[in-house]
């Protein structure tokens, strides 16, 4: 566990760890629950050393019962605590689906009691995890009013969004992409900061085509942009960062500028977040569009295990490049 006294380079994973550590130190109400997060430090070692520092109760190992401990987090949150719950893998969030969508999401609407809690969901593929350790479950919760959803792509955003999520008065699902854990690094500010929920970020400016994406796919988009710039095609990469509430203005502004849009995500295509973004553009930016909206996403299958299958399944830099060329020529 690191403390952020000096400027330093951290991985995406370490950024998450730091955010948790700092928020726990800052606010006594913050506590952690999940499977194997205590002495073991969690399946991905994000809470390594936390239990020594904060004790057995604030870093609480639960029985194997996602519905039970998400429910417990809801109860504690209503009592004024700030629970952060870890899914060992995002895939297991299906076991807590009912508590999340029926209790947490609807609570404030129904009777005004806030549920300030965070569910950390290590998600996504590219890690040879197969159908049950690679899922992107954000689409389900995107369609569940009452939840906020964030999905950072960089260490900076990972830290800032987790802090914002913990300080938010609502249930927030924090999608952390497993593929990025140790693959992206950055030097972070030494002072406390948050990345506000609800604000997208233009990760690269460009005049020709907007690529609207989030999480691991941001990096595919940036790589595609790098390649295409040599051909004179300038992609603008919009990193949503927050999925709910969606920063429509930043999306619209970008597409109004470029007149062409690619929506890119790793989640299954049909009914994914990309559908909503495409629909919004077709409704709100119809007149400014100079070509069809192009969605790039995983096909409508579970995430297959074997390498050639998973490679086929995941959206690739080349898919973005190919789509952009076509759109540029439209």
């Amino acid at each position, binding site marked *: 566990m690191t403390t952020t006294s000096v400027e330093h380079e951290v991985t995406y994973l370490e950024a998450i760890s730091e955010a948790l550590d700092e928020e726990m130190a800052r606010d006594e109400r913050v506590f952690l629950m999940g499977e194997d997060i205590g002495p073991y430090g969690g399946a991905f070692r994000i809470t390594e050393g936390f239990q020594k520092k904060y004790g057995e109760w604030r870093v609480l190992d639960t*029985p194997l019962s996602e519905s039970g*401990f998400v429910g417990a987090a809801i*109860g504690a949150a209503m009592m*004024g605590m700030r629970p952060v719950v870890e899914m060992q893998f995002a895939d297991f969030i299906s076991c807590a689906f009912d508590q999340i969508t029926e209790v947490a999401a609807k609570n404030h609407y129904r009777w005004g009691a806030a549920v300030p809690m965070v569910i950390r969901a290590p998600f996504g593929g590219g890690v040879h995890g197969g159908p049950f350790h690679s899922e992107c479950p954000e689409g389900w919760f995107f369609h569940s009013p009452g939840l906020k959803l964030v999905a950072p792509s960089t260490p900076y955003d990972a830290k800032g969004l987790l802090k914002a999520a913990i300080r938010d008065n609502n249930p927030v699902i924090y999608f952390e992409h497993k593929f990025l854990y140790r693959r992206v690094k950055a030097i972070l500010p030494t002072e406390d900061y948050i990345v506000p929920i609800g604000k997208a970020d233009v990760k690269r400016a460009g005049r020709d085509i907007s690529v609207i994406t989030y999480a691991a796919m941001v990096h595919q988009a940036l790589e595609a942009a790098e390649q295409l710039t040599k051909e004179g095609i300038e992609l603008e990469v919009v990193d949503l960062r927050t999925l709910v509430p969606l920063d429509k203005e930043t999306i619209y502004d970008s597409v109004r500028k470029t007149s062409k849009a690619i929506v890119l995500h790793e989640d299954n295509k049909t009914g994914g977040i990309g559908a909503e973004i495409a629909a919004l553009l077709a409704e709100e930016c119809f007149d400014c569009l100079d070509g069809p909206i192009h969605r790039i996403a995983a096909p409508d299958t579970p995430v297959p295990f074997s390498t050639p299958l998973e490679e086929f399944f995941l959206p690739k830099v080349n898919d973005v490049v190919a789509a952009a060329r076509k759109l540029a020529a439209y």
Partner: protein
Amino acid sequence: MDAVEVAKDVKRADLLQMYYYLRLTRTLEDRITALYRQGRIMGGVYTSSGMEAISVGYASALRPDDIIAPFHRDMGAFLVRGITPGEVVAQYLGKRTGPTRGKDGNVHFGDLKRGIIAFVSHLADNLPVATGVALAFTLRGESRVVVTNTGDGGTSRGDFHEALNFASVRKLPVVFFCNNNQYAYSTPLSLQMAIPNVVDRAKAYAMPGEIVDGNDLAAVYLAARRAIDRARAGEGPTFIECKTMRMHGHSEHDSAKYVPRELFEEWKKKDPILKAEHMLKELGYADETTFKEVEERVKKEVEAGVEFAEQSPLPEGTETLEGVFAAEDEVQS
């Protein structure tokens, strides 16, 4: 021990107050049923008729800063916690003065200021939530307790299991009541579980369990008090099975043909109000005059509530869009 003997362990004033709430609950729910039959209530009506002693009993055993997470037959607990008949009827009528401002219906309401977690239709969902309430108390070193309730049917759900297991492992200050009224909608206990007593479920968690006559106000109250004391002392959760009977259909549109008539006959004699009156008389704490007085008082209160509710405004359509998220400056109670 005989019910009257048992009641001696409860203060006279407490018994009389609980009797008042028993009557208030019955009268209020009967009135709501009447409104329903007149077509003046939207949605379903689920009452606790014949089971009022349970929620009146456990709620009366709590301190003001404790919390309840009731289920759909716990009107008594709402009233004991200070919800007024007017608020309840307003809730049933979808009025803006109801605790959910029309957002939700019937007994789906809560109020943190009065220590009530709202019921969720999905049965047993509130049990894990209750463990979390208790966990918050433990984390902060508070000596508060949470009581929750479920039906016999609700105990078959996974969330029941996950909640009781977690509460036991962490010795949380939570008391699990179970309102065993022998049916879940039309499903008899024998198709719900293979055990003779719901309390046998507690063995899976090494949790102390107790069976109590759910129609005996003092017995329920005392069992609740014992369990609450244990919880407050840090000795962990308790499971309390209250034997009772649902004296009507599952909701007002159900004629309960699947219940043998004799069963109703049998349990009619065990009506909790009758029992309480017998006990109060035997102890010399009250007589028919007192009962009459209480009856009139609660009738008035209920009628005032109905009037309040009927005169209350409905919400405006656009209020639909309000409250999905808590504001950033919203203060939690």
